[in-house]
């Protein structure tokens, strides 16, 4: 079986790399906007698919299955919010963020925050916080990749992990948003195909939906309760709200996800992208949790809940089909990992190194700072994943809670509230992140995402209102926000020049990539 599965995986990698090279050539980074945002030429279907495949990581195949297997139908609350995560993101901030980022000339989601809330501290805090949190998020992808590779190849976890991390790193060095977006598009198709296939096969194997639920009831009827196994979460309203919010509104605070809005071909792209996102989510999002629940019956002796979907695929499907499912799992992992690593490299090189340490940084410096940081993340991530691998579910929930709590009010208010100012944004980002972090670490009996959001929203509103006189929102930002509300082309005189005067730097990055 392993040989056939490996052949499928190798074929899959070849296709992904080929699409990546094609996209690099087609999308060619003619300027910095081309490199970081695909020249803002990404249409609705690819926008929706890169948004979703970046949002849905290896967590879905490992953490989602594990949550279903261990808690039963309680885990469905995570999917309940997640189905609408894409369309909420696109409908609330998609069109407006695309427009405002264009007017302000922002090329990264962190730079955008500094342009909207003008102060160096906004960029420094946001950049450092993002790099720190995204490291943990990509760590979860490494662990997922290592576990999957170990199962497919039969290699020890350590060796499989090294191979998985190596593939992800090499693939990421290909670079550029356009390549990432188009490979994400292909990977999203593989992900949904694999998910639908394993879901259908498992449903047939367990005798249908009613039959599997009846079998679960014989093992332990509380698995079927929406309050979870042993009714452990009965009336735990804050956990319930947190589970729904984390993947419905939380995505609006993820820097590597909201970048997708800035790269859209036009503001109207958000409309159809929202529709495509929901359709894709309906087929993909609930299935992993249900598969974990089905595994209670199909795999009663499963030792590692995170391996539920891997094991179902290995035991129930013919080798060729298992190969497709394994490719889908690796697609989920890689499509998230490449986006995060690109984002981390961008933040490190442009938002931190060039902005604060070396404004005269050349194209060569930028490329190397980005690559060194990606390499360091790879090595440190490899060591942590090898010696002290945390649970994927807990890492992803922790990271996404802190990211969502820190940045969601800042990104939403950036386009919806003209009184949102710099002190409000700083207080909101710091307060939201600290609250979510401390709630998790101190085991505060309130969901960390919910607590973080309450604090970050409160701080944004209270501090902004209290500092309107001392820190008024600049006139050019008010004008830009007035323009963002309107539906119609942006007047030429409002477009920033900064997109284009950095073309030399981008050309250098592109040449460097071509040369390597």
């Amino acid at each position, binding site marked *: 079986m392993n040989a056939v599965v490996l052949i499928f995986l190798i074929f899959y990698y070849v296709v992904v790399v080929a699409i990546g090279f094609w996209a690099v050539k087609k999308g060619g980074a003619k300027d910095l906007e081309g490199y970081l945002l695909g020249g803002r030429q990404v249409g609705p279907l690819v926008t929706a698919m890169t948004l979703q495949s970046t949002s849905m990581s290896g967590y879905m195949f490992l953490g989602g299955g594990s949550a279903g297997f261990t808690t039963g*139908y309680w885990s469905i609350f995570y999917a309940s919010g997640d189905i609408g995560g894409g369309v909420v993101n696109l409908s609330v901030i998609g069109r407006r963020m695309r427009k405002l980022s264009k007017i302000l000339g922002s090329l990264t989601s962190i730079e955008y925050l500094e342009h909207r809330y003008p102060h160096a501290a906004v960029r420094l805090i946001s950049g450092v916080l993002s790099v720190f949190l995204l490291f943990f998020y990509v760590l979860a992808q490494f662990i997922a990749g290592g576990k999957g590779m170990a199962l497919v190849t039969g290699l020890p976890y350590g060796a499989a992990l090294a191979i998985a991390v190596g593939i992800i790193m090499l693939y990421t060095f290909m670079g550029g948003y356009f390549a990432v977006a188009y490979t994400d598009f292909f990977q999203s198709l593989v992900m949904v195909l694999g998910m639908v296939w394993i879901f259908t096969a498992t449903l047939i194997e367990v005798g249908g*939906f009613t039959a599997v639920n009846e079998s679960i*009831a014989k093992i332990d009827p509380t698995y079927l309760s929406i309050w979870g196994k042993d009714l452990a979460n009965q009336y735990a309203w804050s956990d319930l709200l947190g589970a729904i919010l984390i993947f419905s509104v939380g995505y609006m605070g993820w820097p590597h996800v909201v970048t997708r809005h800035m790269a859209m071909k036009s503001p109207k792209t958000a409309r159809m992208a929202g529709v495509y996102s929901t359709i894709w989510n309906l087929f993909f999002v609930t299935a992993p949790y249900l598969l974990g629940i089905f595994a209670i019956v199909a795999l009663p002796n499963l030792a590692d809940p995170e391996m539920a979907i891997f094991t179902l695929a290995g035991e129930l499907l013919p080798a060729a089909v298992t190969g497709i499912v394994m490719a889908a799992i690796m697609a989920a992992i890689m499509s998230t990992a490449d986006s995060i690593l690109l984002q981390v490299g961008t933040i490190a090189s442009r938002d931190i190194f060039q902005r604060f340490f070396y404004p005269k940084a050349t194209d060569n410096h930028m490329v190397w700072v980005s690559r060194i940081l990606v390499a360091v993340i790879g090595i440190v991530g490899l060591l942590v994943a090898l010696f002290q691998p945390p649970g994927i579910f807990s890492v992803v929930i922790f990271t996404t809670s802190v990211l969502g709590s820190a940045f969601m009010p800042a990104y939403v208010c950036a386009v919806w509230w003209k009184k949102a100012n710099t002190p409000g944004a700083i207080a909101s980002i710091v307060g939201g992140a600290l609250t979510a972090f401390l709630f998790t670490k101190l085991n505060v009996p309130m969901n960390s995402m919910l607590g973080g959001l309450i604090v970050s929203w409160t701080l944004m509103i209270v501090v902004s209102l209290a500092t309107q006189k001392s820190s008024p929102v600049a006139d050019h930002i008010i004008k830009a926000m007035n323009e963002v509300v309107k539906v119609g082309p942006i007047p030429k005189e409002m477009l920033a020049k900064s997109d284009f005067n950095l073309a030399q730097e981008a050309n250098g990055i592109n040449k460097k990539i071509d040369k390597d």
Partner: protein
Amino acid sequence: MFGLPGLTALVLFGFPIFWLLYTLVFFLKTRNWVDDSENEGGKS
């Protein structure tokens, strides 16, 4: 329904229906977005 308690079935099937309706309303309410930025950088 499907051997599930009523509340579980409501959550399992209710949320997808809610998001479908949300998407439909979003799609219909944003018909004017097609006018957005056909000529980005055009005259005011």
